[in-house]
């Protein structure tokens, strides 16, 4: 009997003790706990590749963002609200949330890569190259947040900078306050400078960021900040960067002689510096996002047949343009930017003039053509923009009109289809600036928001171009250049403060 009791107790005892922690430590089979994930070179590479996976899919940091900027400039009405009256509850949140989710992925890489043993990397520079790429991406997203949700134009002490994160999110750091504007710019520039310092000189693909893009993007930031803050240092720095970028342009990165090929080849075109690529999977069209595949055919379009059922000429199409039709439609590039496509909706077989360089055949016709046409690129930066920026920077840093117009004519000369005429040297500074402004639009319209930044950087008759474009009672107010911080952030983050006057 005694023995039996011992047996029972020995059966029960292990169960009655709290020593079952191991039994309860159930770790998922197909996911890594964050602290264990980064151990090898493969993981280091994957952590950087994963950053692209977090924002390249869909529209949020891509075409949706850019159509909003175009609409804000007033040039083309694509989305709603172009009078700068956004408030907290209707402020666009797509870029905000996507940028932060990409930054979280950046931080996994940036914090994890240093922990991977040096010996795991194939070359001595590989570690910093990867870090540089991750930091370029973090700098890029922080700069977008800075330019679009904070008072980036304000003095350094202004407390309305960005929410800056350098750790992967956990419960403790889920809510963070804002930095000052000065700190924000510093953080952005530190990341980009590190990238320029450490990324490889060779250019492997425009589908990822590169040293070339880092220089060009930094130049663009300095150009925007420098003009707004009247900082000649920013502008000379920017000019140096652009000059360097053009001078060291890799042989593989050059303009297409046939501009149609730029958009037909899409992300495979050699003229891309940084471009959105979409994974080749069965639902590629739906991964490409609303604006790229659908939205244009119902917003900024011109019906192919008019109410009398007669065709509209492409040269008469409007496609949502509200200003400058006289010089936009007469440029030969109009016939490359736009084209005839079927509406996107399944039941809607009507044809329309649309921004075909972006919309292509549209989701219905594209997915049903053979082979499928689903290469919905988003052109974050193409080579021509370098030349236009160079022209602007020469003009802004005291170059002559002839010096300034030269890069634009050089860029134009590289096209044979369509043949684009050379510009005469403008007689006045004002004419020069006007031509540079128009060239941004004629070359890059709807691609990457350049028309928005240009619309407040350039002036005509003492007013910003934005006022000229929008006309009427619109008065430019730089304190509304940024969107209000979106509702969901304001409601759920007790540490945050809204931009002044944007509740």
């Amino acid at each position, binding site marked *: 009997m005694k023995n039996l009791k011992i047996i029972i107790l020995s059966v029960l005892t292990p169960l009655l003790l709290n020593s079952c922690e191991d039994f309860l430590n159930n770790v998922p089979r197909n996911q890594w706990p964050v602290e264990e994930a980064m151990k090898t070179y493969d993981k280091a590479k994957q952590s950087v590749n994963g950053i692209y996976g977090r924002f390249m899919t869909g529209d949020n940091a891509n075409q949706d963002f850019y159509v909003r900027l175009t609409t804000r400039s007033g040039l083309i009405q694509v989305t709603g609200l172009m009078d700068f009256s956004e408030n907290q509850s209707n402020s666009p949140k797509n870029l905000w949330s996507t940028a*932060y989710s990409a930054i979280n992925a950046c931080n996994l890489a940036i914090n994890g890569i240093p922990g991977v043993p040096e010996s795991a990397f194939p070359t001595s520079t590989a570690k910093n190259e990867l870090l540089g790429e991750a930091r370029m991406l973090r700098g890029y997203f922080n700069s977008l947040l800075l330019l679009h949700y904070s008072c980036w134009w304000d003095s350094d002490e202004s407390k309305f900078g960005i929410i800056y994160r350098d750790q992967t*999110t956990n419960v403790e750091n889920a809510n963070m306050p804002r930095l000052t504007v000065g700190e924000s710019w510093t953080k952005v520039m530190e990341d980009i400078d590190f990238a320029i310092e450490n990324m490889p000189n060779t250019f492997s693909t425009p589908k990822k960021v590169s040293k070339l893009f880092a220089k060009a993007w930094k130049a663009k930031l300095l150009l925007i900040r420098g003009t707004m803050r009247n900082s000649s240092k920013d502008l000379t720095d920017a000019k140096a960067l652009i000059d360097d970028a053009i001078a060291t342009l890799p042989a593989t990165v050059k303009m297409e002689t046939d501009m149609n090929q730029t958009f037909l080849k899409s992300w495979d075109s050699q003229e891309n510096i940084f471009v959105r690529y979409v994974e080749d999977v069965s639902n590629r069209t739906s991964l490409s996002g609303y604006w790229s595949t659908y939205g244009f055919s119902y917003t900024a379009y011109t019906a192919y047949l008019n109410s009398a059922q007669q065709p509209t000429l492409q040269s008469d199409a409007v496609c949502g343009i509200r200003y400058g039709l006289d010089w936009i439609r007469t440029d030969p590039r109009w016939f490359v930017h736009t084209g005839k496509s079927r509406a996107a909706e399944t039941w809607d077989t009507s044809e329309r003039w649309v921004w075909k360089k972006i919309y292509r055949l549209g989701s219905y016709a594209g997915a049903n053509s053979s082979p499928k046409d689903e290469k919905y690129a988003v052109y974050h930066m193409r080579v021509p923009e370098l030349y236009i920026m160079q022209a602007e920077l020469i003009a802004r840093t005291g170059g002559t009109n002839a010096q300034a117009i030269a890069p634009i004519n050089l860029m134009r000369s590289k096209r044979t289809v369509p043949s684009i005429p050379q510009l005469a040297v403008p007689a006045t500074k004002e004419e020069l600036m006007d031509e540079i402004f128009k060239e941004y639009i004629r070359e890059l319209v709807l691609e990457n928001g350049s028309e928005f930044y240009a619309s407040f950087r350039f002036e005509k008759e003492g007013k910003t171009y934005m006022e000229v474009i929008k006309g009427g009672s619109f008065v430019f107010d730089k304190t509304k250049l940024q969107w209000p911080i979106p509702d969901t952030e304001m409601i759920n983050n007790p540490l945050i403060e809204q931009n002044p006057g944007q509740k």
Partner: protein
Amino acid sequence: MKLKQTLNHFRYLLVIMSVLFCTTTMFAQKLNFELKNTPLKSILKTITQQSGYDFVYSDLLKLVEKPFSVKASGEDPVSFFGHFFPSIGITYKIHEKQVVLSPRKAPAESDTTVKKLSTTNQISHTQNNQIKGKITDQDGLPLSGVSILNLNTKKGVYSGFDGSYTLEVKPSDKILFSFIGFKNREYVVPQKLSSNFDIRMEEDAVALESVAIIGYGNTQKIKDVTGSIAHMGKKELETAPMGSTVQTMLQGRAAGVNVQIQSASPTSPVSVIIRGQSSLSGDNQPLWVIDGIPEYNAGVSGSVSNVLYSLNLNDVESIDILKDASSTAIYGSRAANGVIVVTTKSGKEGMKPTLELSSRWGYQVMNFNGYDYFKGEEYLNFTKKATRHELYNRGTFDYFTRLYLSEAEFWKLNTSEIDVRRIVELPGAYYDSDTYWMGEMTRNPLQQQYDLTLKGGTKEVSYLAGLNYTGMQGVVKTGFSKNYGGKIRLEARINKDIKLRLNANGSTRSASDKDYMLDVLKKVRPDIPVYNADGSLFTRDAYTENPYTTLKNTGYGTGENITASAELEWTIIKGLIFTTRGSVNYSNTESLTYKRRGSTFNYDGSRNWSRTKSDTKIFDNTLVYANTLGKHDISASLTASIERFQSLRYGMAASNFPDDDVLNSFSNAATKGTLTEAYEMSSMVSQIARAQYKYNDKYLATFTIRHDGSSKFGPDRRWGWFPSGGLGWIISNEEFMKSGWLGDNLTHMKLRASYGKSGSQNLQNYQWMTMVGSVNYMQQPGIYPSNIGNLALQWEETIMTDVALEMEFWKSRIRTTLGYYNKNSENLIYSQSLAPSSAFSSMTANIASTTASGFEFSVDVDVIKNSNWQLTLNANGSSNNSKVLKFNNTMTELAGLYYYTKIVVGEPIGQWFGFPTYKRLFGTSEEAAALKTRTATGGITMYRNNMERSGDIYYKDTDGNGTINNDDKIFLGTALPKLFGGFGLQLYVGNSFNIGATFTYAYGNKRLWYMAMSDVGYTGNYNQSNKIAGMSAILRSPFEQTTLPNATPYGDGGNGTFSDYWLFDASYIRLNALNMSYRLDKNYFRNTLIDNIELTLQATNLFTLTRYPGFDPQGNFSTSTGMASTTVGVDYSYYPDAKTFNLGIKFTFK
């Protein structure tokens, strides 16, 4: 006189049964002793030692102290009991190896008469008038010690060990057969005496002596329970109609248990909610425990993965619904939503092998509550009017009006004055066909069910083996559910101390789910042709599927479930039992869909397949001690349990197949789709202690504590303590209650109260961990932080208070329970919104506290109760009120884009929130136009937009600012019933016939008739229905009370917006089940194998009294969200209700 006698008899029954375990040392087959002047106590001890029989008796059995002289030589114990106990005025009942002793009052007025009559156990043949027979229980086992009293002569006898008896009678004498735990039976001796007068006694189903299963293998008499337990036994289970599952049969049967059956589909989801929703997330379903094994593959879903559908109701012995903390605490961490304990049948020791074969056939009649789709002419008539309305209203053509009306002809009119009568149809807008799709696609389905059970037992081994099949057709052609099951239960006594139980059951279910046909039918116009000229199926556009395509599409699910357990029970010493049990539950489900070309948005076929394999392994060890020391009755148990759940789900998808019929396997697909694989594991470790104490049959106490560790929480929050306690006072056992009127009339009265904490770990696995997942770019793998873990996550905790009063009057002919409960739930787990700068939109967190309270009552009345007739009426009801006490963190309310309810602090849960209306339509367009106002600068402020016309809903401008916007939304009443429950009656006539009816009801709730709201909001180019578009102001006068607003292709006028116009009173009373059964007694089948045949006729949903206009005042809740607090009350009208008629026949062979 007779009444009083029986009353006394009952009073004794009530106080019997204090349990005393006597030591058993050996198993002797025969009794050999001679004892003189020995106290009965010692005699019993001797018998126990020699035979292994334990004796159970109450303190009131004063006889145990009395000395007797008795002798036995080589006698069988049962035979010995048969003459010995009656000789000393004791009745007894043998249950397995236990003998229950009780003092006898009946059958004779004085003990002496009985003694005289019974000591001989033979009737002296003074007259030739004798009846002889054998008394058995309902399972055919002989009953010894049954008192047989001739009420005319007041003389009686007891039945012998083999159940046989002989009694002197005269014709027309009344004979009363009575035995403890069985119903009394009365017979009148016929004029012509038959030599055989066999009697079958039936167990008394009165709840009083019922035994509830209280978890971890323990049972307790309902009367001793301190918590709130609803017990359902044989009686309730027998009347469950065909097609019932273990969930649906609970509807209306127990107070506080709200069962919602989505529809009559064979794959219909069913929701069971006990005492209101305590959790904000999840489905609030109780924990199901089947034969001691927690079942995790249960839930709301009607898919093959839900094992509750595969559980054969014919195998179920009892269902116990544990509602309060004191009862559920034993299941601690998972018990916040209540626990339902299902016990299946088993063989019995010493039972003759019995074979039962039963079959049932059923027929279902669809019940759309008058709803029907438009037929050809009706459709034309409506569409012509609706499109003209929209054209006139908009003043311009749109996509839909262009489909029906000729724009070219319109322009030719060349006038700005539109006369809708002059607008002509577009040629070819309508097709020539006139198909009544509904008739072609649906049917009144048939159901069949077969059961074969073999059970029996010897002294050492008892067994049960069964096979069953259930086949159900769906209302939609080609829809079905088929279930095959088998089970084996075995119990073996290895020696006197050790018992082994083995239990295995398995089932396989296959189902073809065609429920979405109803949605297809709703959209397909009657004028659309079935076939193209080439004989292929006609498809109008990507939105409307040809119903014949739907019929041919595959929506197939199969599931296999196997549960096996082994249990060893070891009686270590007297009163101390150790049980160890291991169980494995394995489930494997598979789903396959194939959508053919012509299916909605399907151009080249698509195929989807997934498989989920899961298993739960549990290992329990329990030590139970029970003893009675004088008036103290103690039992205590300790349990340690570990369990682990694992599941693996994988699936694949592909599209673009060469054809739909042959080359449509995955390997034929031109486009390979996504592949999925997901593995999950969770574990739990628990320690449980329970103590029960009873003093003098008056005072009861139960204490339970459970300590649970769950892998779903982080290392620091893993363990939870769940204590509870319950007290009971059987007031009727107090001396002061036993005299006077109360003593005569109040049979039983108990006050009980309990308080305790239970928990819930209603969340996905791994939510506490921050993890890294994968994402691709440039066809290369990438990684990223895929979630935000919450290390602070902790158990949801519910503190429940329960108070109830149980009373029974007049020999328990009236039985009532009245109870009140209060539940405070804290740290409710829900998805908490996060600031997007955290990179995530939400995380799982403990976000809120709620409180719920309610009343419950149940009444059972035996209106007639005699040996031939018994009529019982019963009713139950409950009400529940819940509200949010506070939100943690940054949340202030629970409301969403697709919610029609809003939860804010202090307001009841389940309240509709939306636009109020004047519950009428604009009579004229001028009335609508007059509501526009001018702004200060002269602009027009629209009341809603510029689209309202005559026949549109008149919204209330609650804030009086001249326009309807979100600020005008208010709370619009509750989606939860104020009172719900069931009532019923059961009539037994003689031994062979019974008829029963079960009604359910709900009162005071409003439901959203979602289908009507969405139909008027968008008629598109779909077909419409008589009860919605047919009642709309397009066809009817806006002044009619029954009229619904305008229904147009684009829903201009905004009538499809959620408002109180679409909320309808969903109070109802429904005859849920009507049940008749007739048993042909074995006398008819003498000399055959057949023991008896039972015929049943059942019907469900025979009628419903309600003003609710939709298909069904209950059910049709969302499949995806179940009964979540945010969508409860929305009637999505997925599937109609049905009446089911079924006929059953059951053969018992011996």
